[in-house]
C-alpha cells in the first residue's frame, strides 16, 4: 500500500500565518530580525557595494547637470564659509565674554549601519544595526553628514526602524532658516512638503529648511533640505512649499542616531 504523504505541516503553517501574524507582527519581526541580523548586515554591505556602481550608470544623464549646479554652489559655499568662519570666531569670543558653555555636539551620536530597507519606495524606512542595547530610543533624530534623514520609529534589542523624512508617515516640525517661519514637514511619494507656513512669510527658492525643535526629540537647527517651489495658491490660508532633500536617502550606508538631550 502506498504511504499517504505528510500534509499537516502545510495546513498548520498556513493557518498559523493567517491567524497569528496580524496580531504578533512586532514580536515575530523582532525575533526574526535578531536571528538574521548578521546575514542582513552582510547582504546590505554587498548590495551597497555592487549596486552603487549601477546606480551611477543609471543616473549618468543627470550627472552633467548636477555637476554644473554643484560647481556654482561650491563657489558660493566658499564665500559663505569665509563669512561663517569670521562669525564663528566672533561668536566664540562673545560666548567667552558672557561665560556661556555648550556641550560637545559630537557627543550622543550613535553610528549605525543600514542593514535593511523598505520594499515600497513610498513607505520609506530603513533598518539600522543599533537598538535599545546601544542606547537607541523611539523619537530620536537620525542624521547623515549633519543632515536629518529621519527619526527612530521602532526599537528592538539590536536593531531600530527609522522612518525617513521622505516617507508618507513622516511628520517633522520644521522652520525656514532665513525667514524663521515655522511649519510642518511632511513626506510622500510626490516629494517632501513644508506646510502651515503663514501667508505673510517671505520665502525664497533655495532657502534652507531646518528643524524647529518643537515637540521635543529633535534638536533645533538641523538642516533638512531646500525650498524648491511653492505648491499652494494665494487664496489658501497657509503656504505649502515643496522641499528638495539635501541628502539622497537611497545612497545612505551609514547614519548617526542623535540621542535625546
Amino acid at each position, binding site marked *: 500500500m502506498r504511504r499517504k*504523504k*505528510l*500534509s499537516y*505541516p*502545510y495546513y498548520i*503553517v*498556513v493557518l*498559523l*500565518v*493567517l491567524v497569528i*501574524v*496580524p496580531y504578533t*507582527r512586532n514580536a*515575530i*519581526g523582532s525575533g*526574526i*530580525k535578531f536571528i*538574521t541580523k548578521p*546575514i*542582513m*548586515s552582510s*547582504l*546590505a554591505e*554587498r*548590495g*551597497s557595494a*555592487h*549596486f*552603487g556602481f*549601477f*546606480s551611477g550608470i*543609471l543616473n549618468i544623464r543627470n550627472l552633467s547637470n548636477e555637476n554644473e549646479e554643484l560647481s556654482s554652489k561650491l563657489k558660493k559655499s566658499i564665500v559663505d564659509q569665509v563669512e561663517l568662519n569670521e562669525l564663528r570666531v566672533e561668536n566664540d569670543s562673545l560666548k567667552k565674554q558672557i561665560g556661556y558653555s555648550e556641550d560637545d555636539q559630537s557627543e550622543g551620536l550613535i553610528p549605525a549601519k543600514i*542593514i*535593511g*530597507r*523598505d*520594499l*515600497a*519606495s*513610498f*513607505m520609506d*524606512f530603513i*533598518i539600522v544595526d543599533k537598538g535599545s542595547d546601544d542606547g537607541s530610543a523611539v523619537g530620536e533624530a537620525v542624521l547623515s553628514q549633519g543632515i536629518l534623514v529621519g527619526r527612530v520609529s521602532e526599537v528592538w534589542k539590536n536593531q531600530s*526602524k527609522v522612518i525617513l523624512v521622505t516617507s*508618507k508617515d513622516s511628520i517633522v516640525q520644521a522652520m525656514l532658516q532665513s525667514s524663521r517661519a515655522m511649519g510642518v514637514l511632511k513626506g*510622500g*511619494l*510626490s*516629494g517632501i512638503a513644508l506646510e502651515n507656513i503663514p501667508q505673510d512669510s517671505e520665502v525664497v527658492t533655495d532657502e534652507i529648511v531646518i528643524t524647529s525643535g518643537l515637540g521635543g526629540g529633535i534638536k533645533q537647527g538641523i538642516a533638512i533640505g531646500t525650498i524648491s517651489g511653492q505648491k499652494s495658491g494665494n487664496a489658501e490660508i497657509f503656504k505649502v512649499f515643496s522641499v528638495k532633500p539635501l541628502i539622497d536617502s*537611497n545612497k545612505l550606508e551609514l547614519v548617526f542616531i542623535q540621542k535625546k538631550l
Partner: protein
Amino acid sequence: MSIAYYIIITFITLLLSLLDTSYLSFLEISGATILLSYAVLIVLALLDRKKPTFFYAAILTLFYSAFSSLPILFLIFMFFATPLAIQYSKKRFSIENNIVIILLVFFISNFVFEGLLILISKDFSYLALNALISFTTINTIAGMIIYFCTKAVTNYLGIKK
C-alpha cells in the same frame, strides 16, 4: 511533501526575503526595486505546484511582515490571491504555459501589486505612475528570467510535477 521539503522551502523563502530587503533594495530603478520572492511565487503558481505554492506564500507573508512595513492584509491578499487567481484562470480557461501567457501573468501580477500599494498609500502623482511603470517592467523581466531558468533546471534534473 516530506518535512525536509518544508524546511528547504522555509530556508529558501528566508533567503529570498533577505535578498529583497537587504541586497536588491540597493538597486533602485525609478523608485522601484526587484522582488525576487514575489516572482518565485508566481513561477510556482505557473508550474502548478499547488501545495508548495501556498506553503511558500504563508512563509513569505511571515517574513515580509518582519522585514517590510507593508500592511499585513495586503501581504496576505497578494500572496494568496495571486497564485489562486493564476491557478483558477489556468484551470477555467485551460491555458497552457507559453511565452505570451507567462509575460501577461507577470505583467498583470506586478501591475496589481504596485497599483494596489499606490491605492493604499493614496498618493497619486507623476512619481507614483513612474514607480508603477518601473516596478511592473523590471519585475516582469526578472520574473520571465526566473521562470525560464527554473524551467531549464527542472528539465535538466528531470523533476516532474
